[in-house]
């Protein structure tokens, strides 16, 4: 005869106000096999848990039913309490008499009858429970970081410093990401590359970090602790092992190429690196601009290369990496020109975006750091900055605030005035959002020291007139229309996820929001984890954020990844499906209904059967429901248990 204990919780008045808990306990006592039943104000409290433990010990219980709130609230609490008292935690069942009874009913009599039936059902179930042990899964101690910008580098560095091997995959030929394109950083005006270059070098020469640049993640399979990742490396048409990084090829290449790094402000060459401090310092040939690939005679690079590293026949290569955790740090893009017809962006050369302004301002940029307008190279005397271009615009752009624009625009206005002392900067803004250490002070400096004229209001239109750009807007504080004749207009365009972010989300099986930013598991309490165990987020791929926040989040993602990687093995819930091989006919219908790709065929001596990977199985039970021969069972939810529950409710 089983020895079952039933514990009926009052939950203060949450349950007790609607359900007569004493009557439920009395009904439970009458069920054969129930040797103990009691009620208490809060079983989840420390004394409450102690009561359960005490009953397990004194009444030698071999099954426990707690009638209380939803199992998603306190199932783990009560299982832990039972385990401490020496009972297998999987012999504890929860009867939900709060969310599914007292909260949704008002009639005390019927609610009490229903609560008693729910308790009886769980008693019937727990009688048929088997003790289960958590599944032990091995954890591969290596990590993969997708993205070699400041976020990816920080995460890789932190993980490697803690003693674990890291593979960094970067789509561009070089590390650095967006930060490498920037001139100075707010609010301290540190030169961006002065901060970034040492970090890049450290990452590149770290013995536990392996760099795979000019590469992309193609396929991800496996599960937490045991991911298998296929990585494709695009052909660079240069043998990087032979190459010595002299860049003679770049110097001599006759074909100009508009490289993405300069963001439309300058040209590179068909072969070469994006910027002088590039790491790895190895060139790639951009096929679409290379004369040789356009069918013309050239091959200058191959002729000048002192080590014969140019290889026009190089093909894409693929490799597979096994890792235990993945950090996704793919960064951001800015809204393309097509969105801003009213500002003439894309039509008039002197209407540029802020990333282009960064390039104009960068000492290693196309103008050597002198701010010259693109159309005629003149130094602009009046510059208009337009904030919220595409942000906070639910009708025609994005509803969200891109967060970084207020600060970088203040930085741009400040730097512009430093370089052009007799110039005037105008900033059209909606609100100034300068929350951050030293941020508001910096905006004030821009207004007071740099004399930037801040105009609260939006710009209606920009159009050319007499060789300048006429900016029509409103000053909503003064209530007047404003017209500024400007030499250069800079748009603070909305921050978007990187192109291809949604495809990567599908590959990784992680969620993205309606804009394509990756979704965190919980906005407050699990900000760097995804809903897929073992995959973590860092940087602007999750939401617009600045460098300081990105680095902090990258370190947080690294800490979470390390929490997993250092464990050696993981304990997983044993409530998963298992095949009775004697009964399995090998039809594999279960394989098609499994949403987690957890079922694979397994060859026995004479036939094949289904086999469940407990690391991937989430215990949804789809396979058990579809199995025609009744071979698929779900631990904790066997057919016998479910039928017994139904029987107890109906009888």
């Amino acid at each position, binding site marked *: 005869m089983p020895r079952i204990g039933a514990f009926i919780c009052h939950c203060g008045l949450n349950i007790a106000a609607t359900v007569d808990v004493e009557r439920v306990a009395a009904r439970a006592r009458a069920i054969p096999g129930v040797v103990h039943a009691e009620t208490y104000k809060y079983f989840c409290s420390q004394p409450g848990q102690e009561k359960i433990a005490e009953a397990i010990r004194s009444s030698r219980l071999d099954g426990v039913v707690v009638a209380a709130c939803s199992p998603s609230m306190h199932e783990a609490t009560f299982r832990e309490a039972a385990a401490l008292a020496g009972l297998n935690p999987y012999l504890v069942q929860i009867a939900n008499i709060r969310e599914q009874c007292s909260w949704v009913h008002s009639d005390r009599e019927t609610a009490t009858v229903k609560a008693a039936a729910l308790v009886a059902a769980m008693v019937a179930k727990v009688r048929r429970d088997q003790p289960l042990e958590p599944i032990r899964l091995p954890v591969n101690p290596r990590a993969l970081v997708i993205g070699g910008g400041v976020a990816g580098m920080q995460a890789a560095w932190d993980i490697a410093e803690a003693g674990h091997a890291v593979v960094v995959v970067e789509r561009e030929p070089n590390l650095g990401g967006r930060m490498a394109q920037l001139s100075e950083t707010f609010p301290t005006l540190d030169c961006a590359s002065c901060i970034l270059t040492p970090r890049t070098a450290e990452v590149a020469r770290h013995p536990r970090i392996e760099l795979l640049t000019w590469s992309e993640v193609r396929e991800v399979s496996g599960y937490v602790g045991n991911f298998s990742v296929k990585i494709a490396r695009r052909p660079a048409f240069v043998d990087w092992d032979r190459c010595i990084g002299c860049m003679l090829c770049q110097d001599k290449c006759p074909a100009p190429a508009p490289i993405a790094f300069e963001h439309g402000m300058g040209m590179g060459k068909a072969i070469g690196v994006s910027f002088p401090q590039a790491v790895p310092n190895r060139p790639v040939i951009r096929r679409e601009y290379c004369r040789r690939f356009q069918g013309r005679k050239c091959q200058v690079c191959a002729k000048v290369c002192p080590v014969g590293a140019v290889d026009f026949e190089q093909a894409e290569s693929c490799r597979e990496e096994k890792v235990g955790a993945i950090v996704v740090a793919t960064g951001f893009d800015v809204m393309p020109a097509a969105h801003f*017809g*009213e500002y003439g962006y894309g039509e008039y050369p002197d209407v540029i975006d802020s990333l282009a302004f960064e390039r104009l301002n960068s000492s290693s940029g196309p103008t050597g750091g002198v701010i010259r307008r693109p159309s005629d190279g003149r130094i602009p005397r009046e510059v208009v900055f337009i904030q919220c271009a595409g942000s906070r615009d639910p*009708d025609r752009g994005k509803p969200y605030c891109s967060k970084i624009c207020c600060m970088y625009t203040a930085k741009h206005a400040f730097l512009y005035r430093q370089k052009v002392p007799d110039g005037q900067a105008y900033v059209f803004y909606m609100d100034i959002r300068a929350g951050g250490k030293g941020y508001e002070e910096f905006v004030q400096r821009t207004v007071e020291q740099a004399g930037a004229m801040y105009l609260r209001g939006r710009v209606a*239109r920009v*159009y*050319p*007139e007499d060789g300048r750009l*006429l900016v029509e807007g409103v000053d909503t504080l003064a209530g007047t229309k404003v017209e500024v004749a400007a030499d250069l207009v800079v748009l603070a365009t909305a921050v978007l996820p990187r192109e291809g972010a949604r495809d990567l989300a599908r590959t990784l099986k992680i969620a993205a929001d309606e804009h394509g930013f990756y979704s965190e598991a919980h906005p407050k309490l699990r900000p760097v984890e995804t809903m897929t165990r073992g995959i973590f987020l860092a940087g602007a791929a999750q939401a617009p954020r600045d460098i300081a926040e990105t680095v902090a989040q990258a370190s947080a993602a690294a800490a979470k990844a390390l929490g997993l990687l250092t464990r050696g093995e993981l304990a997983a819930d044993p409530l998963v499906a298992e095949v009775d091989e004697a009964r399995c006919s090998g039809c594999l219908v279960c394989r098609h209904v499994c949403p987690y790709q957890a079922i694979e065929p397994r060859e026995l001596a004479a036939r094949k059967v289904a086999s469940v990977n407990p690391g991937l199985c989430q215990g949804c039970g789809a396979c058990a429901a579809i199995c025609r021969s009744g071979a698929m069972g779900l631990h904790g939810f066997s057919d016998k248990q479910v039928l017994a529950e139904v029987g107890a409710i109906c009888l």
Partner: protein
Amino acid sequence: MSPYRALAAAHRLESDLVTLCSGCLNVLRRTNRRVASDLELGEKLRAAVELDYRGERRVRHLLEVLRDDVTWAEVRAQVARPLTGLKVAAYYGCLLLRPEREMEFDDPESPSILHDLLRALGAEPVSYPLQADCCGAFVSLRDDRFEAAGRVLKSAAAAGADLVVTSCPSCNYNLDRARTGLPVVYFTQLLAIALGLDGHFGEGMSDPRPLLRARSLLSEVS
């Protein structure tokens, strides 16, 4: 109430409603949308006007009829006097295009319907920054002030236009009265000439015929 009356009258004739004025189109089309979507308003109007109408009919600008029913290809085929080489600034104004979501007429930042008509007539459409700006007719009709109209015409002249064509009689009247020397004509007038008709040009209004004659574009049609 009066746009509702006009819509209901068209409905009684089992006909869509065509207008050749941007301002009328704006009021009629937006009223039509609201009658169809705002049940409470529809109820009030039916009670007040005592005509039953629920937004069944379409409201169309003559330009849309030319584009969708006649088609540009057919217009092109009917042209007897192609306006070859004539640089025409298309003036769209504000009410034809906005609010974008209610009018669903054309891209408010870079509209093309008048451009397409002009191409069909053999002319060369000229784009200029203020082509979809307000001409200020609401002010000038009362105060005789033409700053807004003057800016529009200055912008068109700077883009090299010989002529300005409009899609709204009110804009046409206002721009014409600004008297900048740039002829301002309504699109049907230019259409008539291109089709080989004489065209009607009222007293005191711009008459493009001397210009066209000088360009040898007003030949006799047999």
